[in-house]
């Protein structure tokens, strides 16, 4: 099985744009990942086993809600720090990053932004430490790219709400203590509800058979007349904009994460091509290999700057959803292209678990689909520049 010899590449001395603390956070998370996760990740992937035991460690390195204020158990960090953490996790595995970005951006973020003080006190510290896991239920069997058409709904029963419906493709769901569930009220308005493990009529069965993100656990959420206490509604915001604002935060993290996956593949390809001898010389001496490597580092460098600038805009609260869509789309495609080229450079070895490339490639097929598919993000940019929506008739 593979050993983690990763060395970071910083072609444009981008590190000079980071603070000492950014670098300390990044280097510490990288060291933790190498020590704790790299040795087990291939096995987890092969056996489709979610490494639950590392959750407290993820909490310790600050991967859960790093930008949540310290009073709620977060680290009160900026958006660049969040991005760097996601980069380091996805450098190892997109599933690892998924666990953290769902917890941070799709569970902690809405509770922090739209929850009551009691909800924040009850959930955020335990989610930040990794004692609890959370999930985000938006997608339904018949509503993926079009979540606004959702059928899951709740009815006001006076002293409680009654929730019915189902969600599908939900990361972390089978192991979650709390699910942030988006459902329509009687007027058809979307609200967020905090559904807790053990509530009567609520189940979260695991989904099997994924060829991608196998080290991350995915499941359904099934609500069969679930009584939800009224204090479990997120009062701060309603409408589709509420879940979409969470997705903005998660997609921003994915944009950084994808750079991590791309860097890992490039690093492996560069090293392998210098070590592998064919026709009496390292394959790195052939022009076609150099073209692949040169294009990889060019694309990584471009993505690093795009994403760093996006981080600055987010720090200032100025990044638009459309800007985030552009970065998510660009970077995930970049990483997937690099994974494919890196796999070719490795020849037959590239398909084995000696190298992380094929795992990254398989994982990125999920990443390019979830949190808005590749094409939907393109249409968001299209809408942004033309003012005309092309995804609904």
């Amino acid at each position: 099985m593979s050993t983690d010899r990763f060395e970071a590449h910083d072609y444009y001395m981008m590190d000079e744009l980071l603070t000492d603390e950014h670098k300390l956070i990044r280097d510490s998370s990288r060291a933790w990942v190498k020590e704790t996760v790299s040795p087990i990740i291939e096995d987890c992937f092969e056996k489709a086993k979610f490494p639950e035991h590392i959750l407290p460690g993820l909490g310790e390195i600050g991967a859960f809600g790093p930008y949540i204020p310290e009073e709620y158990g977060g680290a009160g960090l900026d958006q660049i720090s969040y991005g760097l953490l996601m980069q380091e996790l996805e450098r190892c595995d997109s599933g690892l990053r998924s666990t953290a970005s769902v917890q941070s951006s799709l569970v902690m973020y809405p509770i922090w932004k739209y929850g009551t003080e009691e909800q924040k006190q009850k959930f955020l510290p335990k989610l930040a430490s990794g004692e609890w896991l959370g999930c985000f239920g938006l997608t339904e069997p018949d509503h993926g790219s079009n979540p606004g058409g959702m059928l899951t709904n709740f009815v006001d029963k006076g002293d409680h709400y009654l929730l019915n419906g189902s969600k599908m493709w939900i990361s972390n769901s089978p192991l979650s203590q709390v699910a942030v569930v988006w459902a329509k009220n009687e007027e058809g308005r979307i609200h967020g509800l905090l559904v807790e493990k053990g509530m009567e009529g609520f189940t979260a069965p695991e989904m099997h058979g994924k060829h991608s993100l196998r080290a991350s656990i995915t499941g359904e959420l099934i609500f069969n007349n679930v009584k939800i206490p009224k204090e479990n509604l997120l009062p701060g915001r309603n409408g589709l904009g509420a879940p979409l604002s969470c997705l903005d935060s998660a997609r921003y993290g994915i944009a950084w994460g994808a750079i991590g996956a791309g860097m890992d593949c490039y690093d492996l390809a560069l090293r392998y091509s210098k070590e592998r001898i064919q026709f009496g010389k390292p394959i790195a001496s052939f022009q076609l290999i150099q073209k692949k490597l040169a294009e990889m580092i060019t694309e990584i460098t471009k993505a690093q700057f795009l994403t760093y600038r996006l981080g600055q805009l987010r720090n200032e609260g100025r990044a638009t959803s459309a800007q985030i869509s552009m970065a998510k789309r660009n970077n995930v495609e970049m990483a997937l292209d690099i994974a494919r080229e890196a796999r070719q450079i490795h020849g037959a070895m590239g398909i084995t678990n000696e190298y992380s490339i094929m795992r990254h490639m398989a994982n990125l097929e999920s990443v390019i689909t979830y949190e808005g598919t590749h094409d939907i993000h393109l249409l968001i940019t299209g809408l942004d520049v033309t003012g005309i929506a092309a995804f609904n008739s």
Partner: protein
Amino acid sequence: MKLLVCISKAPDTTSKIAFTDGNTKFDENGVQYIVNPYDEWYALVRALEIVEASGGTVTTITVGTEADNPVIRKALAIGANEAIRIDAEPKDPFFVAKQIAEHAKEGGYDIVLTGKETINYNGAQVGAMVAEFLDQPFVSLATKLDVNGNTATLERDVSGGLEVVEVATPFVLSAAKGMAEQRIPNMRGIMAARTKPLNVVAPVELAALTSVINYELPNAKAECKYIDPENMEELVELLHNEAKVI
């Protein structure tokens, strides 16, 4: 227990090594620095373990410029209570040791810990000199340290075996591999490091005793030669005439 740990920076092991100023100065351009591993993994972590078990404080000391602040912050993030930086370019081992000793003699430390050497210059002199300036015992290359009241027991690797040494505090030691295990800073530690004191103090006036005339890089690694397994004569010929090993 009051412990003082000497911390210096060293280039990351993946750095490209080059020199400037007519090969008299290390070229720092583009070099990433880490905490010298012997200082961090062994001396600092063992010091922290000791105060965690039986109370006390760990202070770090660095002779260096502002460029050393990141590695000092890392030491604080790992768990040191406070840091001192003597604001001077480290000129030579004598200069560094004297600066540290000047501070240490006022500080009333029970143990001064250094790494056995820095991984860039491999001088291995600072600890011994600090001990001399403080007129304290010195235990070099310690792989194990236990403290019981005013007595410390240390282990050292010696040729073909182990030496167990006992020494009364205060004393100075240099730490070698085995004394402790690397600790990765966690987010709490990184956040706490923001507000821990990093005291910058002026150096004492002092001239260095040595100066570097020249650095040289080792010869580039020769390319690997492949010899046909049928052609033993050529192999012997090359080993004899070219490599001159037989």
